[in-house]
């Protein structure tokens, strides 16, 4: 270095660097403060917990106030005042007797002292005695062996005796002292007991208040809580912290492995498992069904099930967006976008199910339950899915059954070509409520060329169906039989047709009608569709036409059938049907389409040669067959030539787990990319993904459009979403015992045959009841059947139903169940009632004559001397050979059947409270009003009466059949 040379001291201006240093340090400090405060301290979930805390405080304060008010008013006030008065008295008395108490206490002290002394003395005496006894025993042994001195032994013996006496004396003294002490103690206790009792009475009344005060105190916290929750310190031991449930066995699939779910939802949803937050704003609102979910009393406690297994979403996340919340509709979407800056997270495959689809998760564990309590949407979705025959094209594991549409083997005997053409092209214009979907003139086949092509296709399909269907002779209406339409209408309304069929549009619109009430076709427009002879023949014996039909036989008389036929034939189809003339077939187009289909299996040249050899009829048949194959008509209808054809749709067994990128949204950009939006959109317009695409006719989407209401579409979507591949371990899955399995199996049959269109079974169905004003005229509740009737009888009844309840106009039809189906049903009923003893038996020999006599007296027979004091059962029930006075339509069930029909243990149960078993029944309570006995010795009477019933029926059954 050359010191002489002027060299700059610095490359930088140091004061400027200082300034930069200051500002950059400040910036760094601020950014770190921001980090700690914003990222760690001010998390949204912490804000929610703080808010919930203050809301809880408000709530507790309000409760406290209410509790205080209650204590200051009304009966509790009175009680409290009385108790306070008693307390004052007791305390006054106590004050007066304070001296007494002091004395007692002093005496207690003395007694205690004496007890202590006596105890000590006794113990010493005992110890000395025991020690000496040993010495004595040794000595005696010694002496007996010939050593030692006998005198010494005698002396010792005396000494031992003395000690024993002394020991016993001290024992007496000790026992006395103990008794004295206890007595004084009891006296003392008695003095304060009165006060204690009153105080505990007050405490009981004020318990709620005390509890609330404690709660408030813990909520208010104080300085310590504030410090615990302050920024930077809040990682040590805050009381605002993440709440989580780790569900070890409901695992989350991370592809390579499964990991336990860690549900943190209640970090923000603080009130979700608590009562009393039903009206609160989200996120604090209580779960809407706490009886079923989350609480410890429910079957799904939060510790065992968490949230995400049902609701989906990102289990570990405590941020609104990352939790993968999903809005239920556009409105909520907008609200969330504003309120929470919500957006879809695309990079998460399990967004939360919007509430309307939440029930989709039930089937993960309850797959075998056909009707699931608490899941009406899912039940409706399943019913609709089965009813409209989705599973015909879309295979779903476990779904098999008869095809949902009528057999087309006998089409030619039933309808004419023109009608079929019109129907196939647009079934809704004939019957707006039909389950038959529309295949033609939909959104991707409504351009001019497609419309023309549709005509050709419909004509070809019709041609094929007629060419291949057989003509079967119709059982004609007997000559001279004239139907009465008015009577027919009454019959249709009364006998139970409406359990499955609609007639026209119902008063409350289609939304008031359940899927079960639309089980069969709407009965309008039959005159267009077929002949009165066919209708007559069909309702008299549906199985004649289709052995697989689910239409039962109502055992109508010829006259009744004629009446109904006349009535039905008078009902017009929907307006406008058939008003337009059928277009003429365009032969050129027909040839083009035929050529197109021929080319699928041969080169163009060969196809051209082939078509030249075909007649017009051949072309139509060829085309019809190809088109039925393309549209999959055979999925729902029995069509000759398609007996072994495979379903044409995508299998849906795990559709609910399909990855979202595998759904093709086509060129549509305004549908959110979710499974449910895809399914819903598709159900609304099955061809929508073709929009804007250029496709050959055979490439086009072909799913038909079903006339479903918005509600049904949501329900079907829910059902499809329920078809997931999640595997739930046995520890969490609903495990069915033998009874429940029998129930589930039978319920499938019940659902397939629509029993619940008429009957209520458990909490489901019984839709027919809405057509009758008097609840006692509705088809009976069949839930208790298993507990009620004997299996042999039930088998017979299901095989060939007879009239049980003469007052009912609605009729149990003959379903012609097969043997094993009947067994399934009987097992189901016994399963529902959890009947363990399947074949009950009452030994009539065990019935005492006295019991029988008493039973007879209770039963009452007109003319006998004790009739006035009897229960007069004959007033309603035919029994023996005695009939009630009133017309048969008001009779009760024939009691001659009781022995054959009813289970012996069930009769007393029934008589005890018929109302509880069959709400709405006409059978009144004779023996109890709820729990109050109405007669002197009800239990005895019940048994006697039952015993008497078992003696009936020997003298021949009175015919109760109308």
């Amino acid at each position: 270095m050359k010191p002489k040379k002027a060299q700059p001291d610095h490359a930088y201006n140091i004061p400027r660097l200082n300034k930069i240093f200051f500002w950059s340090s400040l910036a760094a400090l601020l950014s770190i403060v921001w980090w700690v405060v914003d990222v760690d301290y001010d998390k949204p979930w912490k804000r929610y917990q703080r808010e919930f805390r203050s809301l809880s405080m408000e709530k507790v304060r309000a409760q406290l106030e209410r509790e205080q008010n209650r204590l200051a008013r009304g009966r509790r006030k009175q009680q409290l005042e009385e108790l306070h008065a008693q307390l004052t008295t007791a305390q006054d008395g106590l004050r007066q007797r304070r001296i007494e108490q002091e004395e007692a206490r002093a005496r207690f002290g003395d007694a205690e002292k004496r007890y202590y002394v006596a105890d000590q003395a006794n113990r010493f005496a005992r110890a000395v005695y025991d020690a000496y006894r040993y010495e004595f025993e040794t000595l005696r042994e010694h002496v007996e062996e010939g050593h030692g001195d006998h005198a010494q032994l005698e002396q010792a013996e005396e000494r031992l005796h003395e000690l024993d006496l002394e020991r016993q004396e001290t024992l007496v003294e000790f026992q006395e002292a103990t008794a004295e002490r206890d007595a004084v103690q009891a006296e003392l206790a008695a003095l304060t007991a009165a006060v204690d009792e009153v105080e505990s009475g007050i405490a009981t009344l004020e318990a709620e208040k005390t509890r609330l005060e404690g709660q408030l105190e813990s909520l208010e916290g104080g300085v310590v809580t504030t410090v615990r929750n302050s920024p930077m310190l809040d990682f040590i031991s805050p009381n605002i912290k993440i709440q989580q449930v780790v569900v070890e066995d409901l695992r989350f699939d991370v592809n390579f492995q499964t990991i336990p779910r860690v549900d943190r939802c209640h970090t923000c949803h603080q009130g979700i498992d608590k009562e009393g937050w039903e009206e609160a704003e989200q996120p604090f609102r209580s779960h809407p069904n706490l009886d079923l979910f989350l609480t410890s009393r429910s079957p799904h406690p939060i510790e065992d099930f968490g949230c995400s297994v049902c609701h989906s979403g990102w289990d570990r996340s405590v941020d609104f967006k990352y939790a993968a919340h999903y809005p239920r509709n556009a409105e909520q979407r907008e609200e969330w976008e504003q309120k929470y800056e919500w957006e879809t997270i695309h990079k998460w495959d399990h967004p939360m199910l919007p509430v309307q689809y939440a029930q989709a998760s039930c089937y993960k564990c309850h797959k075998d339950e056909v009707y699931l309590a608490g899941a009406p949407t899912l039940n409706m979705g399943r019913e609709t899915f089965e009813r409209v025959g989705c599973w015909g094209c879309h295979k779903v594991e476990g779904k098999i059954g008869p095809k949902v549409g009528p057999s087309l083997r006998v089409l030619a005997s039933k309808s004419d070509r023109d009608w079929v053409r019109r129907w196939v092209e647009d079934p809704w214009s004939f019957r707006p409520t039909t389950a038959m979907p529309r295949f033609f003139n939909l959104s991707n086949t409504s351009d001019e060329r497609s419309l023309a092509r549709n005509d050709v296709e419909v004509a070809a399909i019709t041609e094929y169906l007629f060419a291949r269907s057989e003509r079967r002779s119709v059982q004609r209406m007997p000559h001279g039989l004239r139907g009465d339409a008015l009577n027919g209408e009454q019959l249709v309304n009364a006998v139970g047709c409406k359990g499955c069929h609609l007639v026209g549009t119902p008063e409350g619109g289609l939304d008031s009608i359940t899927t079960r009430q639309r089980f069969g076709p709407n009965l309008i427009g039959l005159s267009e569709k077929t002949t009165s002879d066919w209708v007559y023949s069909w309702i008299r014996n549906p199985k004649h036409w289709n052995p697989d039909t689910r239409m039962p036989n109502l055992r109508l008389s010829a006259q009744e059938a004629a009446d109904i036929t006349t009535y039905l034939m008078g009902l017009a189809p929907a307006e406008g049907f058939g008003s337009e003339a059928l277009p003429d077939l365009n032969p050129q187009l027909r040839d083009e389409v035929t050529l197109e289909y021929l080319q699928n299996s041969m080169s163009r040249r060969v196809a051209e040669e082939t078509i030249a050899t075909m007649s017009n009829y051949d072309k139509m048949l060829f085309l019809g067959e190809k088109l039925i194959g393309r549209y999959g008509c055979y999925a729902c209808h029995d069509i000759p030539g398609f007996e072994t054809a495979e379903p044409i749709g995508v299998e849906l067994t795990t559709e609910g787990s399909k990855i979202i990128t595998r759904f093709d949204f086509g060129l549509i950009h305004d549908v959110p990319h979710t499974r449910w939006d895809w399914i819903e959109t598709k159900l609304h317009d099955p061809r929508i993904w073709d929009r804007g695409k250029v496709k050959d006719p055979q490439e086009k989407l072909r799913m038909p459009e079903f006339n479903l209401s918005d509600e049904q579409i949501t329900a079907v979507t829910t059902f499809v979403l329920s078809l997931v591949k999640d595997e739930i371990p046995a520890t969490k899955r609903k495990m069915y015992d033998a009874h429940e399995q029998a129930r589930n199996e039978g319920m499938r049959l019940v659902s397939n045959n629509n029993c619940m269109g008429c009957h209520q079974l458990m909490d489901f169905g019984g839709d027919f009841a809405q057509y009758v004003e008097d609840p006692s005229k509705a088809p009976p509740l069949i839930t208790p059947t298993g507990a009620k009737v004997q299996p042999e009888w039930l088998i017979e009844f299901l095989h060939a139903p007879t009239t049980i309840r003469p007052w009912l106009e609605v009729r149990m039809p003959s379903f012609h169940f097969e043997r094993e189906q009947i067994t399934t049903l009987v097992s189901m009923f016994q399963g529902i009632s959890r009947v363990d003893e399947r074949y009950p038996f009452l030994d009539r020999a065990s019935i005492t004559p006295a019991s029988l006599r008493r039973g007879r007296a209770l039963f009452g027979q007109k003319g006998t001397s004790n009739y006035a004091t009897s229960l007069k059962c004959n007033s309603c029930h035919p029994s023996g050979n005695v009939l009630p006075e009133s017309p048969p339509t008001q009779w009760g069930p024939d009691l001659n059947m009781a022995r054959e029909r009813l289970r012996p243990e069930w009769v007393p149960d029934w008589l005890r409270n018929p109302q509880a078993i069959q709400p709405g029944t006409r059978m009144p309570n004779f023996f109890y009003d709820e729990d109050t006995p109405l007669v002197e010795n009800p239990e005895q009477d019940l048994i006697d009466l039952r015993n008497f019933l078992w003696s009936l029926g020997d003298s021949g059954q009175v015919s109760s059949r109308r």
Partner: protein
Amino acid sequence: MLLSILPLLLLAAPVWAYEGVEVENAGSLTGRVRLEGQPPAAVVTEVHKNVSVCGTTVEDRTFVVGEGGALANVVVYLAAVGVGRPIDLEAIGELDNRECRFEPHVQSLTVGQKIEIKNSDPVLHNTRTEVLGGGIGNRINLAMARAGTTIRKPIRYPGIHRLRCDAGHTWMNAYLLVFEHPYHVVTGTDGTFELDEVPPGEYTLMTWHEKLGTSETKIGVKAGELVEVPAIVLKQSQ
């Protein structure tokens, strides 16, 4: 049917529980119900069962009209009362099965009170109630086989209960209206009614008749006053 659902909804409207307090400065209401026009001729039913007790014919009692159109069997009540005089839990309604008729034909009770059902006939009667528009099945279905039997039954469910007898006496019918508050009364044969111990305030005074449905009148009650309600005129609806 529809006619009867309407008042049920009105009855069911106040979901909060009624609170009984000592009413200070209570007022009272009094008035009269009148039918305009000729009542329809009573339907006469022929009897085929227990003729010795029931007689050969029975006349229905839907319209009991006195002098000047005074209409009996109309229930007059206040709508949606939340606070008022304590409910007299000791009061008991009576229902007699006499000569195969329910007696009285219309009565009103408050939830928590009891009804005493009696059979004065030597035949089997049962008393079954249907809650109109309720869809909840029967609330009562009690049999009385012996003459002189009485049963006391607590009343738990508000609403309009229609009473039936299923022992072949198809004509038997009566009405029991159950409220959650004590401000209700049935008009007598002179068509008059009176409601006491009403806390001051504005009310809707309602009437109910089994065929005529409901009507409503706005009414103000002042402390310590007896309010004369202008005559309530019911018309036969078509």
